[in-house]
């Protein structure tokens, strides 16, 4: 079941990716990338490694998390429910079979594509900073996210008011996705919404690169907003999780800017010093 669903996601992204690359990235950038990929990869390797380490750490924490959480975590379901009550039911007003199909597809496929495409697109840029910042921001999202998952034990709205979400509940309508999400997450990991934070992160970078990728920007924004709404429409997240996700995205991008700017500065300085030492200024 799990492999089936995963294969489907991989296939969909694998089909959409080349189309998007042709449409948004263009032949010219691809040609340059073919010439420069080695040197770009060399500069970008550290951030790729960091992201992989963070993802690996996330996987480990999925196993070890519950035990740690039980020791130091805070039960927050009742607080969230008291604060926002049935707020997310506002999205039930637009509920229909088509909407549910749309948001389910967005939640699974749209989200995967929204995260993967910028990685490819920014690799195709001749400057490497955007790519390094994006991956740093992704890593920060995951790293901070996993810490919050351990600290905050909370169940999502579908677990609190199942009968009110019966029409749109993701797992009622597409039970097969449960096998996928169960593999990557636990049902008490709702705060913050990483779907929201990563989608928002991708959208923020789409805004910043709107000069280079003019057509991608509006698409990324529509996708990101859809992903964010889908988390509440499908009954997976509270509005509080979404707000936290947005704040996390902002924080991740802000920190990534500082981190990558500094390491770039250090590198520039060292290069300059090396040049000076070699006497070939």
């Amino acid at each position, binding site marked *: *079941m799990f492999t089936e669903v995963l294969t489907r996601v991989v296939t969909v992204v694998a089909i959409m990716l080349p189309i998007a690359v042709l449409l948004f990235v263009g032949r010219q950038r691809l040609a340059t990338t073919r010439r420069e990929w080695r040197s770009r990869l060399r500069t970008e390797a550290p951030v790729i490694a960091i992201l992989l380490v963070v993802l690996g750490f996330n996987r480990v924490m999925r*196993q070890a998390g519950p035990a740690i959480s*039980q*020791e*130091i*975590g*805070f*039960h*927050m*379901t*009742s*607080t969230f*429910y*008291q*604060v*926002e009550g049935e707020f997310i039911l506002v999205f039930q007003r637009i509920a229909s079979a088509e909407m549910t199909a749309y948001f389910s597809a967005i939640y699974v496929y749209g989200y995967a594509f929204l995260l993967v495409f910028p990685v490819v697109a920014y690799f195709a840029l001749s400057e490497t900073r955007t790519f390094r910042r994006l991956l740093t921001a992704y890593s920060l999202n995951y790293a*901070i996210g996993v810490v*919050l998952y351990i*600290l*905050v034990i909370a*169940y999502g709205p*579908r*677990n*609190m*008011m*199942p*009968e009110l979400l*019966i029409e749109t509940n993701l*797992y*009622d309508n597409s*039970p*097969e996705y*449960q*096998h996928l999400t*169960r593999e990557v997450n636990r*049902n*008490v990991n709702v705060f*913050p919404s990483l779907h929201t934070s990563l989608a928002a992160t991708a959208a923020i970078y789409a805004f910043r690169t709107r000069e280079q990728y003019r057509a991608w920007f509006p698409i990324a924004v529509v996708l990101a907003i859809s992903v964010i709404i889908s988390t509440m429409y499908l009954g997976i997240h509270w509005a*509080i999780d979404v*707000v*936290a996700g947005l*704040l*996390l995205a902002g*924080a991740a991008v802000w920190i990534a800017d500082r981190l990558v700017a500094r390491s770039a500065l250090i590198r520039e300085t060292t290069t300059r010093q090396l040049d000076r030492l070699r006497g070939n200024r």
Partner: protein
Amino acid sequence: MNRNSTTSVDGISRRSVLAAGAAGLALSTSGCIESVQSVVNGSGDGQVSLSIMTVPADGDRENVQIARHLEENLEAAGVDVSVDMRSRSEFLEAILLDHEFDCYVGRHPGEYDPDFLYETLHSTYASEKGWQNPFGVTSPIAFDRPLEAQRAADGDERRDHIATLLSNLATAVPFEPICIPDENRIARSDRFEGWDSGHLATRHGYLGLEPAADVDRLHALITDSRISRNLNPLSATLRERGTIIDLVYDSLLTERDGEIEPWLAESIETETEDGSTTIHVTLREECLFHDEEPVTAEDVAFTYRFLDDTSLGRTSISSPAPRYRGHVSAIDHVAVDDQYQLTITTSTGEAVALRALTVPIVPRHRWRDQVVDRSEDDEFSTEQGEWGLVTMDNIPATGGGPYRFESNSEREYLTLERYDDHFTRRENDLPEAPVEELEFSIDPGSKSSIERVASGNADVTASMVSASTVADIPDESGLTHLEQGSNTFYHLGFNTRKTPFSNVHFRRAVAQLLDKAWLVENVFYGHASPITTPVADEWTPDELAWEGEDPAAPFVGSDGELDVELAKQAFENAGYRYDEEGRLLESY
């Protein structure tokens, strides 16, 4: 760690909590979350405040709906109330071990014989941990007396004492029974026959099956992941009915459709006189545990001694197991006559004595060694219900049952394999393990479980499916829709150790806020029966039988709609007052 069970918003506007929450989010530190908690918990201004603990909808979505129905009605009656959600094991930890709760909505495993109420209600167990008296109720006259009396009796006399007990239960309400669910399952009839030969919550549900010619594996789906992580028969927080434990461990006798039959005991002879029963047990000969060690009378005697005190006398205070407390307490003495003969005496009538013989028999050599090993530790402590031996995962489990542990993966699956040396393989008149391999895969969703069985990717939903998904069970050839009765029941449990639920009048007023008939219709879609007592119909006296309405705790309202004035009156009659804003005030 926040173990405070009374989370509430006391006299603080939602906006200020939201602001505090936002501040907490912005800084994303644990310190801030702590401060939000303290704002939320804030000191009371006199309004009655309580929390309803329950489990998330994943796997069993009815509990939380009942909890929210109650929440809504309590709120309307002026109580400050919140719904607190815990995973199934943490839920049981809070209720059975820590006793840190106000009230809860959950499903009790129940049992075929009403004697389970002995451990549930007897005042002796009010401070013990485990399934024994989680409500902390101490009522020597209302409960202990009829509990003891029913134990000593059989037949009509016992029925009378049970009737007294149930009527006292309906008056004192340490817990309020809500309904008995219908157990609905879907199974593949093209791969196995005999699905109705035993209840699927017991070993007989599996052992009676007849596989089709080329079938050598049964793939069952289970919504609850706990069995993939732990196989300790004594765990209070990780077991429900112990169905899978009963496939791995044998008991002397086995219950089948309400009847008691010999199992590991080849035969028994009972003599009952003046409320005491002597049972001569003859074990089946040449039975082996899964590690090839022989099963003897010593193991049986050990099991009862061990359940009674898991420290085996190595600490000054005895440490009874958090499960099977009532079973073991019925037994006075176990004498080993020879390798396969025992004499067990109880201070009870026959029915209760037989029930005591349904506990899983554990291998003496393994568990005794465990106690000895652990007692060599300098920090040896056997905290009742919580110490290492009753909480350890016990993987691989070594029982003597028809199936033995093969492999597991946490939150994924548990695989058992047929134990070819089991006595059912040589006795012709007993149901035996039908297939070589029995795999229980964890699938948390009822709907996806049904789809998997329907599409041929599994053979049966071992867990009963959620009432809301019963309509999704397809009517196709090769499939069968199983509908079986249940001993389990949904109930609202009260912590009578602390206010406000220490007040019986308050408990009764709260019990009347539940519209059981409406819940059965709207939450269970009719796949349940509303109840007044927690035992089977045959034990329920006529005056407590459900005849269209609740004879003991009638809902104050109709069709799920609360009559707020009547509800408030009930609280006022219980000695509580309201302020001018309609908030129920704490009584002093």
